[in-house]
């Protein structure tokens, strides 16, 4: 090992120590009496000092020595840690970090003057000595913890029970009186623990990436090998290939695992960040972390660090109110910022929630008007959800004053770009006075992602699966409306919603062909930049995991592609950048200025709205039922239906579910037709009444719709209908479930109208 290697080791170790110290200091402020913690901090600082002496890094040595002196006094109980001391110790850390960074880039210590800091430290260490009664030192306790501190900071450097790294012990010089009382007397239990955790080995990232590449190659080589087993019917050869096949698969899986790292790696920096920011703002905030063990590919970890820092800063600076304000609003003085990571559908979801004031929607509206982003009148009509979109525009800030924390208007747009660059998405939700909740959805790994392959012209292209909502086949000869034109944008109707479409061959300038009037279009419904659109492709091929590779500098100007991947046959296929295509087509701007489906944007909006499930019956095509009455949707086969007395029932899990043919109860519906054996499946809306499932048989279930709470009453009243609502200029009848259930009871019992109908409609 030459000097350079030792130096690199030193830098890595020093960084780990500093990271750990960051955490420890913040913790220490919360629990100032924690002697173990003080001991840990002291030792870590000491190790750093020792190592820097070995390399003759004078600045580093002086600063860490001064820090150590102050810490020594705190450890011995001569001084107590207060905010002033904590702040100066943290700035000592920053100073040390800056020096280490300098060393890393130049391999020599950067020049600089730390005398002020050193003096302050020493003054604090010495000056107050007389004021504080000298307490008996408690050396036993910190030493018991001697094992875990260096173990945490440098797990792989020393497999044997940790001593200060070898190079450090060389240098402990005579002036260092504190060090002599350090007796490394490890607890036997800790030794066992240390040996168990001695496994991790440090591997350079470069090597890891290279290995990953090789493994991908190996997989492709295997793919080329596989077809030969069918060509030659040599048994030995086949079994050898099979072994290679299995090994490669396992190798690939293991390799993927090595790249995964817990999100805690990024989060360790946040307690410190939060402390600094909240101190600067004069706010009191606690950071709660949940799911820090969630694993992500390491390249992704790097990519989410800055966005997360930004969001957390925003939460504290914009979100959490000042203590007095919180009290006046009846909130606890201590604001909360919650960081939560979890897995969800093959994605990692990171939530950053605060219980602050929420986004100031009025201010956002005002700024939007001031910046001429939207005409005054239109601005007044915008819902909160729509206002939130402005936050993601470049240069948009609600802070009137630029602070060094935020307000410069370079913020959420960068966050959004960074997140979408790694195939993720961002969702923001905010309630006045209650808080803001930001959800980041990040793919598990960048290296491999599922993609949908489509053909355009003669080439296959991959679409990242996370932007694919569904696939639709549109037969232009059968469709009643087909393609329509909406202010120059071709659109088609999907479940009563207008969906704009793009032709991939036009976008890629492969050809200018338009589909024939009777063509069958393959449309991939995609979600991008907040809008939903359909991409017409020549053929839908398959779903496959792809290894994403960058296109390189020569092709980076082509915004239509996010990268490329190598197929099993060794060919290259391009991966479409859905955002890029949507924006380049000019469609995004068009749709934003002229929303296609006005109500869809307001989907989650005002509280005046109510969610319903729309469905159809023979003869009654537009019906809806309150969503709260719907527990599940099921497709049942007619073969499952059994006759039980005069009722049709099916076995539903462990229960018997009665079927109720809605068309018999609703005026205007076709009474005759009841589902017969010819039907392949019967759609059933499951509703629980008194804990008993009732299956409402319909002929087709459509969609969840959001409509106004105010029903237009049907006049004269119609059987089975509560009233109607309008949506998209269509009248939708809302069924009266209560009446229908009563009618059923009447019909079946053929008795009097039951005096009391004990039903639960909540």
């Amino acid at each position, binding site marked *: 090992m030459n000097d350079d290697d030792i130096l690199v080791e030193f830098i890595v170790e020093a960084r780990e120590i500093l990271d750990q110290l960051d955490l420890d200091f913040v913790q220490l402020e919360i629990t100032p009496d924690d002697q173990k913690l003080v001991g840990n901090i002291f030792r870590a600082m000491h190790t750093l000092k020792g190592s820097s002496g070995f390399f003759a890094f004078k600045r580093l040595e002086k600063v860490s020595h001064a820090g150590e002196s102050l810490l020594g006094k705190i450890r011995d109980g001569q001084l107590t840690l207060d905010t002033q001391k904590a702040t100066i110790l943290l700035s000592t850390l920053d100073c040390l970090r800056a020096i280490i960074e300098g060393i890393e880039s130049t391999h020599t210590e950067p020049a600089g003057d730390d005398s002020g800091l050193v003096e302050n430290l020493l003054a604090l260490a010495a000056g107050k000595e007389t004021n504080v009664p000298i307490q008996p030192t408690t050396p036993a306790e910190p030493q018991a913890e001697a094992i875990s501190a260096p173990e945490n900071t440098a797990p792989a450097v020393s497999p044997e029970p940790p001593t200060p790294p070898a190079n450090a012990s060389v240098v402990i010089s005579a002036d260092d009186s504190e060090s002599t009382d350090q007796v490394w007397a490890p607890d036997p239990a800790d030794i066992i623990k240390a040996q168990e955790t001695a496994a991790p080995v440090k591997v350079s990232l470069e090597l890891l990436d290279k290995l990953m590449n090789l493994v991908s190659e190996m997989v492709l080589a295997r793919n080329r090998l596989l077809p030969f087993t069918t060509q030659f019917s040599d048994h030995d050869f086949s079994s050898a290939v099979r072994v290679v096949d299995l090994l490669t698969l396992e190798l690939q899986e293991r390799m993927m695992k090595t790249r995964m790292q817990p999100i805690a790696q990024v989060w360790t920096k946040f307690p410190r960040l939060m402390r600094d920011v909240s101190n600067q703002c004069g706010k009191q905030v606690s950071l709660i972390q949940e799911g820090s063990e969630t694993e992500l590919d390491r390249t992704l970890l790097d990519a989410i660090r800055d966005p997360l820092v930004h969001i957390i800063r925003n939460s504290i600076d914009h979100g959490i109110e000042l203590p007095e304000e919180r009290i006046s609003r009846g909130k606890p003085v201590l604001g909360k910022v919650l960081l939560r990571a979890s897995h969800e559908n093959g994605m990692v979801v990171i939530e950053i929630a605060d219980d602050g004031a929420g986004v100031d929607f009025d201010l956002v509206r005002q700024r939007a008007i001031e910046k001429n982003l939207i005409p005054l009148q239109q601005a007044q009509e915008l819902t909160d959800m729509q206002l939130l979109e402005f936050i993601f525009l470049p240069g948009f800030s609600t802070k009137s004053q630029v602070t060094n924390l935020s307000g410069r208007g370079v913020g959420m747009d960068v966050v959004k770009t960074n997140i979408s660059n790694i195939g993720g998405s961002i969702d923001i939700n905010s309630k006045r006075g209650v808080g803001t909740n930001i959800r980041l959805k990040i793919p598990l790994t960048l290296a491999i992602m599922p993609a949908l392959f489509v053909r355009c012209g003669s080439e296959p292209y991959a679409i990242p699966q996370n932007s694919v909502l569904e696939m639709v086949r549109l037969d232009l000869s059968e469709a009643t409306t087909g393609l329509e034109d909406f202010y120059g944008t071709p659109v088609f109707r999907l479940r009563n919603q207008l969906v704009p479409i793009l032709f991939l061959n036009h976008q*890629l300038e*492969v050809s200018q062909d338009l589909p024939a009037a009777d063509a069958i279009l393959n449309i991939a419904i995609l979600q991008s930049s907040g809008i939903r659109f359909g991409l017409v492709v020549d053929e839908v091929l398959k779903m496959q995991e792809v290894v994403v590779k*960058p296109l390189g500098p020569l092709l980076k100007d082509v915004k*239509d592609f996010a990268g490329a991947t190598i197929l099993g046959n060794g*060919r*290259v296929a391009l991966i479409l950048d859905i955002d890029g295509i949507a924006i380049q087509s000019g469609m995004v701007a068009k749709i934003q200025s002229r929303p296609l489906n006005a109500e869809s944007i307001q989907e989650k909006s005002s509280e005046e709205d109510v969610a319903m499930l729309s469905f159809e019956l023979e003869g009654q095509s537009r019906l809806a039922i309150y969503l709260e009455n719907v527990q599940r949707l099921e497709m049942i086969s007619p073969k499952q239906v059994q006759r039980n007395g005069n009722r049709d029932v099916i076995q539903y899990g462990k229960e018997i579910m009665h079927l109720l043919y809605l068309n018999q109860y609703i005026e205007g519906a076709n009474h005759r037709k009841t589902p017969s054996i010819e039907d392949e499946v019967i759609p059933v809306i499951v509703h629980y009444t008194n804990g008993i499932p009732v299956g409402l048989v319909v002929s087709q279930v459509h969609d969840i719709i959001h409509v106004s709470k105010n029903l237009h009453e049907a006049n004269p009243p119609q059987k089975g209908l509560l009233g109607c609502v309008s949506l998209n200029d269509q009248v939708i009848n809302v069924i009266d479930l209560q009446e229908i259930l009563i009618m059923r009871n009447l019909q079946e019992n053929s008795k009097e109208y039951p005096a009391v109908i004990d039903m639960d409609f909540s």
Partner: protein
Amino acid sequence: MSISTDFVTFYLGGHYFGINASDVLELNRNLEVTPVPKSAKTVRGIMNLRGQLVPAIDMYERLNLERHSGMTESISIILRSDGFLVALLVDDAAEILSLDQETFEPPPSNFSLVSRELVLGVHKLSDRLLLILDPKLINQRTEKAKNQLLLA
């Protein structure tokens, strides 16, 4: 005594070109090129070089040469240009020549604009001229060429 340099030589559109051998990683035959729609004309597409994506430069376009024959270039010369790998698509590869500085001359003045920037100079061989290309410019100028295209 003069220092000699090794050149990988190749044919393109009837011309004889050379490129400093130290920049060249390898030569390949019949690597499949996947076209990249909407990319610069000079980039024919990308190819898979053992798991690495390498842009394939259409040297006819790059050098403003007229394509006479209908045949497609089958040889790709992989070289490192400005830290990135690129593949030059050429008609045929020839031998590696070790040449002295003595026979070298700056490019003649009657060269067309684009190729003039790319050609470092000419080695006067006994029977013909060998045009020496600058590997660094191959990468950079492609982008500029595209910008010019966009402006036009």
